[in-house]
């Protein structure tokens, strides 16, 4: 098993009123949001933010009440010492529907960067990065950060071509890319676990990174474990705060206690999770 080199500790989180630069549909329910954030300390791949659309200064909106956790898709420096933070989201409920209404120039409260990032595999390690549904948004920065020597391969799954997030961005990274759709509208027909199984069968993979629906991540974890390969997953959970205060985002551990997805995760080694206990 390849050792994971130590990484610098993630930056301390901030609370800021971010300015919407762009917020547009990418076809289907997928949206891309670009935010300008003053004082952004920089995030590490795998970290997330809490977004409160329509809130600036005083809390003005009572319903829907809670902020929404969103992966940092990517970020880059912007004019005036600010940073631009990019978020990919899918409209699935009232919070994300409200998020679509934030127009350029308006403010969205952001708290972040939060959580533990993906540990980066050693440069020589061979990595598979497996994304499904909105989980794809957590993985772009990771693929960018993994060293070229590690020849990361990217496997992306979606229900249909319309649902697949950020396909063009991933293709432009120039890494080997396999796409699966359940309806066959793009790439291979079926689940993303099929190409994962084939890749693991080669016997040259050191590390699997996975983010997507819980059943998909669990399947990835089980396939990796069977192949004796280390697997990191990035979990989702209901979350009110994102910084370890509400204790709402408990994920069961094999010992019978709980990790917090926001503070101890969202990235976990798959063996740290008692998968049967996840909702």
């Amino acid at each position, binding site marked *: 098993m390849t050792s994971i080199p130590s990484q610098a500790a993630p930056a*301390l*989180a*901030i*609370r800021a009123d971010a300015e919407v630069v762009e917020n547009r549909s990418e076809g289907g329910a997928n949206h891309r949001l670009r935010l300008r954030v003053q004082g952004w300390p920089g995030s590490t791949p795998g970290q997330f933010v809490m977004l*409160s659309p329509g*809130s600036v*200064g*005083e*809390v003005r909106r*009572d*319903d*829907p*009440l*809670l*902020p929404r956790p969103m992966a940092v898709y990517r970020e880059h420096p912007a004019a005036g010492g600010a940073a631009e933070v990019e978020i990919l989201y899918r409209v699935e409920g009232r*919070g994300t529907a409200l998020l679509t209404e934030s127009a350029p120039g308006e403010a969205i*409260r952001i*708290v972040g960067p939060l959580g533990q990032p993906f540990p980066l595999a050693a440069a020589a390690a061979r990595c598979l990065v497996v994304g499904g549904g909105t989980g794809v948004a957590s993985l772009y920065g990771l693929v960018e950060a993994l060293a070229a020597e590690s020849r990361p391969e990217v496997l992306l799954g979606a229900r249909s071509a319309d649902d697949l997030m950020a396909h063009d961005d991933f293709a432009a990274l120039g890494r080997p890319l396999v796409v699966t759709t359940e309806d066959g509208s793009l790439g291979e027909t079926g689940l993303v676990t099929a190409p994962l199984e084939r890749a693991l069968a080669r016997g040259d993979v050191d590390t699997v990174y996975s983010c997507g629906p819980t059943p998909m991540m669990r399947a990835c974890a089980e396939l990796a474990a069977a192949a004796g390969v280390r697997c990191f997953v990035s979990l989702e*959970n*209901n*979350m*009110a*705060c994102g*910084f*370890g*205060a*509400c*204790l*709402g*985002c*408990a*994920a*069961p551990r094999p010992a*019978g*206690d*709980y990790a917090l997805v926001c503070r101890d995760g969202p990235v976990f080694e798959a063996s740290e999770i008692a998968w049967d*206990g*996840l*909702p």
Partner: protein
Amino acid sequence: MSAAVDTKVDLGGISLRNPVLTASGTFGYGTELAPFLDLTRIGGFVAKSLTPQPRIGNPPPRIAEAPAGMLNAISLENVGVEAFVRDKLPALPDGVTVIASVFGTEPAHYAEVCKRLAGVPRVAGVEVNASCPHVKAGGIEFGQDPRALAELVRTVKRATGQPVLVKLSPNVTSIAEMARVCEGEGADGLSLVNAVQAMDVDVARRRTVLRNGLGGLSGPAIRPIALRMVWQAAQAVSIPICGIGGIMTAEDAVKFLLCGAVAVQVGTANYLDPAAAGRIADGIAEYAAEQGFPRVIDLVGALESW
């Protein structure tokens, strides 16, 4: 903040630089919020409820959004009183006012925690979380049974010389009766209200949204109920009251002061905006200045009659 306004209040012997505390269970052990808020800017915070031993919480889902609020059933997960004193308190910056929340399934457990906290210099007072089921009394909440509540307050008062606040449950017919019981047993102040017992259902899965079934409703949805109960309790007793329930803004906090609360606790709002309590503290002072009150304490009970 308006320098001209005196913001100090006294909550049952706990001296606060301003009337804004944060509510137990919404502010961790303080350090979680420290990156976002100068903890010396607020009156203080009430730490996560402590039990004699560490306690593991409920299986997920533990929280869910509700109309203008949220449901939670965390089940009082905490590090235990020993780790709180040893690890959590020393990690706080100087000048932060800390109130320890205590909890147990029988009065002796509360007393044990209070005795461990007695003489700990960083602890300004204790808040008795009376919303726990009393095992020996058949599982009814301490805060729902006047006799169990009286026994609990009496036991805690014997166990500690520190100021004792009692946090009352809203799930009662007469909050005034519960307030009088606490006052009669020597409580130094009251905090109200705790979360309102509630539930919700996921029709797609035909299950309750929380694994625990029942949970506590908090947030703006309960604010008018909380305000009514604070007003009723303030009519019933002369010990100071700390108002809690869906406070999101300084205006919300002022309503509680006008209804008779000496201080307030900000809870669910900390999740939405970890700097909320500081903003609310500033806003109360600004309101007092605008309204011509030289001291924030003068707002307490200053509700005009029709």
